């Protein structure tokens, strides 16, 4: 009972915070609002920890029903929460990292006059994200799914006066919506097939079902996931989403919301296991995304854009893991990525804060002396994402790559290329920002304590995060994997069957090449600070990459322009030239009929009298005939 209350409190607290803040947003100061918002999410974090402690993995999970929601005929969809290993993991990530980012935002947003609104939206986001991960059926997850989309829209367009930001916000929402079409299709399909949307029931019934419909269902789910998790072809919104305040980028567009797609896939892992075809598609889309996004990251000059492409690329890795059927590896990478990517974004935010809003790395440099804590924590984040040994990223990424090798060495090679690119662009970023000479003209200053404390906490987590799922190789027992397995009834996650020797060799290759990459980057960027010139001067292929493979232009030409053209012309041609005249035709017909009949009304009384007489005769004859 107390646990049920706790479970309900987890999403309720941020919601309450959001409502209070939204209604009192004019009256609260930035700090009070921030404090309240942080307290709410921290409260949710505490509740999550309490739930986690009292959770018995052996029982598999519980459903907490709050309310009847949509129930009509044979459709019963309650508002219910599910507490099991998977949702607990996600809850801890969302509330834990969420608390840190809320705390950080107090410092980051303290000068913004709309800070209370910001915190309200941040809290609302936390609520939605928690609904997403805690929902006991697809439709509850969908509440969160759409809710995070809305909050993402609001927060990206937080500074609403800039049209580009608004455009970015709309783009994010619409692209997410395209994914949602897939999600809804999957839901109606599953509902039709199983008569329910409860995860527990579907997973129980579905395991062992051999049904081609499952391929369709999982493909639809995956379309939903590509939208939310920024995979090919729906990834272009994420880099643009960096228009929002940096804590938003950290929380929504790195640590939590974008992992919703991975979460959903893991949630429905039973279904995906029934559809190997979908798994293959996921695998290859993940790989392609990882590589393309990483390559774009190589040439970006905006500190947040680099991190954004890095995020897309890392999400690609997670999907590769999903495609390989190693759901625990994906979740492990979700966790560690949440740590170090949040750290990196917050660090970037701290840099931006220090430089008074500057985001172009060509105007940075030599900052390590000015902002020491930021530099140190950013450095840890960088080596974590690059996967230097014993960092959290090392364990999680290597696990995925080991699984990839188990499937195919080619896949491993592709992922290795991606990892090397990741190392290169991350160290390029690190060196250009913190090393060399300062190239800007602001006065860098260290951020306040509310901002640096989250950095330090996240730095520690980025280092030790690997312990969560320490592989056998290092004396661990894959704790996270076993924990998560309790959530997915009926299947066991794929486990690694490579020999230890092979694993050592793979690790050695990776680590060596990564170190080589760091050395090259050091030479190019730390010692000389090689800056990219104008795009027009670049060779074709390089320019293509610098222009983000021209995806945005492609979409604009393929979809946005024709859509606008269609909208204009449907109105001016189809509607005004065809439809309206047809309607007018009806009126004209009545009009001309009236005109024709009007002639009869000569106004001549004799004629009318004669007509009357004629009518009388006709009427009489008709009566006579009918008798």
């Amino acid at each position, binding site marked *: 009972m107390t646990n049920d209350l706790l479970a309900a409190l987890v999403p309720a607290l941020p919601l309450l915070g959001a409502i209070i803040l939204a209604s009192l947003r004019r009256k609260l100061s930035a700090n009070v609002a921030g404090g309240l918002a942080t307290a709410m999410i921290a409260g949710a974090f505490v509740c999550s920890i309490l739930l986690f402690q009292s959770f018995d993995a052996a029982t598999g999970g519980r459903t907490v029903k709050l309310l009847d929601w*949509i129930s009509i005929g044979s459709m019963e969809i309650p508002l219910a929460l599910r507490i099991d290993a998977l949702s607990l993991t996600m809850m801890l990530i969302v509330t834990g990292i969420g608390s840190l980012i809320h705390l950080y935002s107090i410092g980051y947003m303290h000068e913004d006059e709309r800070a209370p609104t910001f915190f309200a939206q941040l809290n609302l986001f936390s609520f939605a994200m928690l609904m997403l991960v805690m929902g006991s059926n697809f439709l509850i997850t969908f509440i969160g799914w759409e809710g995070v989309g809305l909050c993402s829209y609001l927060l990206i367009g937080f500074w*609403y006066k*800039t049209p580009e930001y*608004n455009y970015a916000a709309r783009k994010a929402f619409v692209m997410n919506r395209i994914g949602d079409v897939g999600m*809804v299709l999957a839901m109606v399909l599953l509902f039709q097939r199983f008569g329910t949307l409860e995860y527990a029931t579907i997973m129980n019934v579905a395991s062992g079902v051999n049904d081609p419909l499952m391929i369709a269902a999982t493909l639809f789910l995956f379309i939903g996931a590509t939208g939310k998790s920024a995979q090919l072809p729906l990834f272009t919104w994420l880099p643009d989403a960096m228009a929002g305040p940096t804590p938003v980028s950290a929380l929504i567009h790195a640590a939590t919301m974008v992992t919703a797609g991975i979460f959903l896939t893991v949630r429905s892992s039973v279904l995906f296991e029934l559809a190997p075809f979908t798994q293959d598609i996921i695998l290859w889309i993940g790989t392609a995304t990882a590589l393309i996004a990483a390559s774009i990251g190589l040439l970006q000059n905006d500190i947040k854009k680099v991190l954004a492409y890095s995020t897309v690329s890392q999400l690609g890795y997670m999907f590769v893991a999903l495609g390989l059927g190693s759901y625990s590896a994906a979740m492990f990478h979700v966790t560690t990525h949440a740590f170090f990517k949040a750290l990196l974004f917050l660090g970037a935010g701290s840099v931006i804060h220090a430089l008074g809003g500057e985001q172009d790395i060509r105007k940075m440099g030599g900052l390590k002396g000015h902002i020491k804590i930021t530099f140190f924590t950013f450095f840890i984040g960088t080596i974590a994402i690059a996967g230097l040994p014993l960092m959290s990223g090392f364990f999680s990424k290597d696990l995925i790559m080991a699984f990839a090798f188990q499937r195919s060495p080619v896949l491993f090679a592709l992922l290795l290329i991606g990892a090397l690119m990741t190392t290169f662009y991350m160290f390029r970023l690190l060196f250009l920002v913190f090393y060399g000479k300062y190239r800007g003209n602001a006065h860098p200053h260290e951020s306040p304590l509310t901002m640096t404390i989250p950095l330090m906490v996240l730095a520690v987590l980025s280092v030790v995060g690997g312990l969560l799922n320490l592989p056998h190789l290092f004396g661990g027992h894959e704790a996270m994997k076993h924990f998560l397995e309790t959530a997915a009834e009926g299947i066991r996650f794929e486990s690694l069957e490579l020999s230890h020797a092979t694993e050592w060799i793979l690790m050695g290759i990776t680590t060596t090449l990564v170190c080589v990459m760091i050395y090259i980057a050091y030479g190019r960027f730390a010692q000389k600070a090689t800056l990219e010139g104008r795009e027009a001067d670049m060779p074709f292929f390089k320019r293509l990459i610098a222009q983000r493979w021209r995806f945005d232009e492609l979409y604009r030409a393929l979809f946005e322009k024709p859509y606008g053209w269609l909208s204009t012309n449907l109105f001016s041609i189809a509607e005004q030239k065809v439809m309206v005249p047809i*309607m007018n035709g*009806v009126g004209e017909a009545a009009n001309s009929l009236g005109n024709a009949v009007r002639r009869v009304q000569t106004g001549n009384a004799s004629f009318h009298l004669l007509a009357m007489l004629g009518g009388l005769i006709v009427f009489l004859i008709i009566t006579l005939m009918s008798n």
Partner: protein
Amino acid sequence: MIAALLLLIPFLTALVLVSLRPAQARPIALVSSLASLAVVLYAWISYSGGTVIHYNLNWVDAWGLRFVVGYDGVGLLMVILTAVVFPFIIGAGYGQQHDRQATFNGLLLFTQAFLFLVFLAQNALLFYIGYELTLIPVFFLLLFWGGADRRAITVRFFIYTLVGGLSLLFGIVYLLIQSGGNGDFTALTNLSIPASTQVWLFWALFLAFAIKLPIFPFHSWQPETYYMAPLQGTMVLGAVMLKMGLYGVYKLVFPIVPAGVEHWQTTVIVLALIGAVYGGVIAFRQSDFKRLVAFSSMSHVGVLCAGLFAWNAYGISGSFYQAFAHAILVLGMLYIVGAMQERTGTTDMSAMGGLKGHAPRLAALFLLVLVNAVALPLTQSFVGEWLMFAGLWQVSGWLTFFALTTIVIGAIYMLYGYQRVMLGPDRTNVTLADASVRDHIYLVPLIAVTLILGVYPGPILELLDAPVQQLLSSLSVN
């Protein structure tokens, strides 16, 4: 008693307003509509399922016209809708300065009385009489208080609707002949009409509703009329009048010509969805706020109609649930239009932009209305849309996909519209008033209804469940 009150309260008040023209016309109209609302709420509370018949009197026997009034769950929902909507419409007029207040509000109340008649009628001819009667006050509302070019547009609207009404009358007369002059719905439902007849009779009956709704090729009267009509007139048209079409299909088409429905089902769904996509795409580039709302309404109604013609429990109940949501939505959107018009003096969005800086509260209210428009979960629209999609899926996966594109299209035009009005750099150069207490009084209850019924749709779904099941089971028996 309830039926008599519902019909008489608005009708008598309207008579008083039109004939005596008291100075305090609006408050009187408002009180009258609130009284109707109270009666309806009482009816809702005391409703315990089944079809309730309040009066069953002979009127003109020879034509099969009998005064049979009552309601089932669906009818009650429509009555509730009418009762909920009118106080808002009358009240929302406080910002609108009309001359001849008494006549204006009197006409609104006449409309309400006739709408009640439509939704309460259990006799086909009585239904038809109410259906056509509603046109008369609306005609005068549009003609006297409309915007530019109102004569031509009103006459077009009138003729177009009357053409539909004529075909409906023809269909009803045919049915009356078949049933030996008994026009009660119960009697018409029991007719066994040959399938080949039903195939054409379907259109005779449906054409009027198709125009009223409107669905795709019959829609052209709608955008211009919405645009030209006075704000409250548009509210009446969009929030309740078009629901008559929906209700008519449920009452007059589904149970009476099931074979016809079966024959034309796919056609109608396809047309409705073409309309939904067509309207949505056009809405994107509209520069006028009111036209945007008009086309968005058309898009929503397309989906509504498709859901209805999914012709199964989820589709029909989803459609009616969404009908309620759509009414609330239309009111909200139009109220915002009115609020913007009041502030900027125009409905042209190219003259707006960046208003959020001046009116953050209004922007927030707009956003909350908009959330319903794009059918985010936990709003009323989502429940309706989900049920409709679940229903459509049973008909065809492709059509469901087609219908689902509207959620993307809807997001595109709604957010773009919001951006053009509220976001971006400030382009008005004048200080505008933020949402006033009055705006809050009207919009907050709407938003509350939206959210409450989005989280807890039970009471309304309960109303819909039994009659829809009954309709479907009676069809499967036949």
